[in-house]
């Protein structure tokens, strides 16, 4: 499938794929795709950052390649690694058969393990539509951002023993961050930036229609407005949209068709996940959410 050529088309494609973006997000995605720049999305957990990449992959019909960041992530896990065990074996075999070992025999593509970044560049260089998701970049440490800087400006990777892989048409890149630390400005400047806020009540209802279609319109409204109130309580960790969808499904499983204080009380653990937050909600009274 080809890419939408206007903001309106892109928005429609997202909605058709079960994602209801706010207008400014549609604009940002459209720009990122058209300008060939990475999209950098920040926001609280559970507001649908990762989902953007999945939907983009399904719209373009391309593969989603995901790099989950974590502390200590380095080149050998993000770019490429050699398959040492096989290299050692190959050396033994060559020696046993009396042949000399040539460096080129064991430092070739055959012994290369491509990690997500290399996979994405390779696929893009073959002209296949590709979406690269670099998830939770804030979890990786600052040293890793330096690798990314180079990759994001040139979309090429050089492996000394093999050569350079370069993507003429860059893959669509989506970078997410939960903002547990500030990402360096140099990375952000190369990107299209968007902050995803919690949705408005209307948009959350629309999301529920897409994500939990069995839930009745009335119940969806009740859930969305309860969530809105919940996020205004002083909670340690406010629930995201993911929690709203889970909540609708949980009520579905329990066979509840409307939001009663008892139903909220029984399902509180689905939406609030800290003991003291549960206390806060109980103190405020579950009825106050109705």
């Amino acid at each position, binding site marked *: 499938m080809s890419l939408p050529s206007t903001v309106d088309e892109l928005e429609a494609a997202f909605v058709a794929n079960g994602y209801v973006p706010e207008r400014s997000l549609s*604009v940002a995605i*459209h*720009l990122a795709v058209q300008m060939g720049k990475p999209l950098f999305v920040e926001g609280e957990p559970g507001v649908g950052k990762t989902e953007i990449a999945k939907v983009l992959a399904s719209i373009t019909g391309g593969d989603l390649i995901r790099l989950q960041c974590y502390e200590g992530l*380095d080149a050998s896990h993000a770019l490429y690694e050699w398959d040492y065990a096989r290299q050692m074996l190959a050396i033994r075999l060559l020696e046993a058969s009396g042949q000399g070992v040539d460096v080129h025999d064991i430092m070739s593509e055959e012994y290369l393990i491509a990690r997500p970044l290399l996979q994405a560049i390779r696929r893009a260089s073959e002209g296949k539509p590709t979406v690269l998701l670099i998830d939770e970049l804030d979890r990786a*440490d600052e040293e890793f951002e330096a690798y990314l800087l180079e990759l994001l400006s040139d979309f090429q990777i050089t492996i000394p023993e093999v050569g350079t892989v370069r993507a003429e048409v860059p893959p669509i890149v989506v970078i997410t961050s939960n903002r*547990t630390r500030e990402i360096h400005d140099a990375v952000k400047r190369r990107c299209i930036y968007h902050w995803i806020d919690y949705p408005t009540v209307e948009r959350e209802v629309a999301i529920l229609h897409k994500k939990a279609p069995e839930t009745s319109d009335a119940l969806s409204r009740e859930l969305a407005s309860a969530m809105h109130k919940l996020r205004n309580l002083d909670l340690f960790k406010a629930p995201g949209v993911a929690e709203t969808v889970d909540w609708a499904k949980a009520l579905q499983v329990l066979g509840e068709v409307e939001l009663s204080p008892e139903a909220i009380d029984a399902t509180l653990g689905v939406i609030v996940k800290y003991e003291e937050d549960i206390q806060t909600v109980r103190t405020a009274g579950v009825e106050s959410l109705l």
Partner: protein
Amino acid sequence: MTPDGETAARNVVVFVRRLRAEGFSVSPQTTGYIVDAATIVGMDNMGDFRAACQAVVVTKHDQIEPFNELFDEFFSGSYVVSLDSVIDRVVQRTDSGGRARIGVAATDVPPEVDETEEVYEVGGGSYGERLMDVDFSELDEDEAAAVAAMLDAMIWSPTSVRSRRWRPSARGTVPDLRRTMRLVTGPKGDLIPLAFTQRKQKQRPLIVLADISGSMERYSEMLLHFIHGAQHRFHGVESFVFATRLTRITRQLRRRNPTEAIASAAKAVSDWSGGTRIGEAIAAYNSQWSRRVGGGGPIVLIISDGWDTGDPDYLALEMRRLGRTAHRVIWLNPLAGRAGFAPEARGMAAALPHVDDLLAGGTARNLADLIDLLQSAGRRGRSAAAQ
């Protein structure tokens, strides 16, 4: 209204000047992106156009609101109509050879900072030695200057934690197969020397929350010197001050000259010497900052005398939350060194169960001791809380 391309480009150029004057960093490259974005999205729908500009210019959440205000003010019609005359002036100035700075005055250009570091004699003699033990509130003006100089010059050496990143090491215990393979293909190939790695060391972050309310007045300045020193000799320090509300002063303290840095921090704070609401300040840190700057198991240093006008239960709750995200919570109380001190101030008593160390902080000697503690805080268990 669809302005022709040239007018649009001119509008963008002037808008960028306005943004820069308001403190946004907009590179010439970004200016190009704005023009690209305007071309892709079009200017028919102002909401879309604004979202597009925002997406290429803004790099932080808290910039969004100021950006939108500026954008609305700029593109709200009247301004745009009168643009041409502005542009003409810009063009004229540029033509005459100078750098164009029109439309808005470049505000707040910092004066050239004199970077020459003064060398102080620290503790070199009985005068310095004596001052080390004098309570900050009892110093006269000259002595205060001398003590501030000592605080500026104190030596910090950081405590470190093990990072999850690896570095090459001859004494490491984990074989580095990547480097080994490189070595194998080198001149000594048949020997297969193993290369080793070990975990890198990384510095533990330090978060400072300093009370600057009325009751702390006589200590605040000295303590700011101390915090300034911490920030410059210790990597990864975040500094906040509070009285009734929390203000982050990390950026202001980044200036090298301590006097200027503290003056600039003072300007950023709106509630100097007001009442104290420690609970609210810590709550603000927990909810707004802890997840942004408090990663990696920080040491949290709270500096306060514990005189609190807020709700002690609230303070206790927020202290408990704080303790959960911090590696260690140290409370520095300027009064704690005095004879007969007991942690009885309402706030102090409420917070005490959630504090790992309660230390005195009224003299330069106290602060020197604190630095020693920070260097070992990665290893020692709870100590003074049991006092």
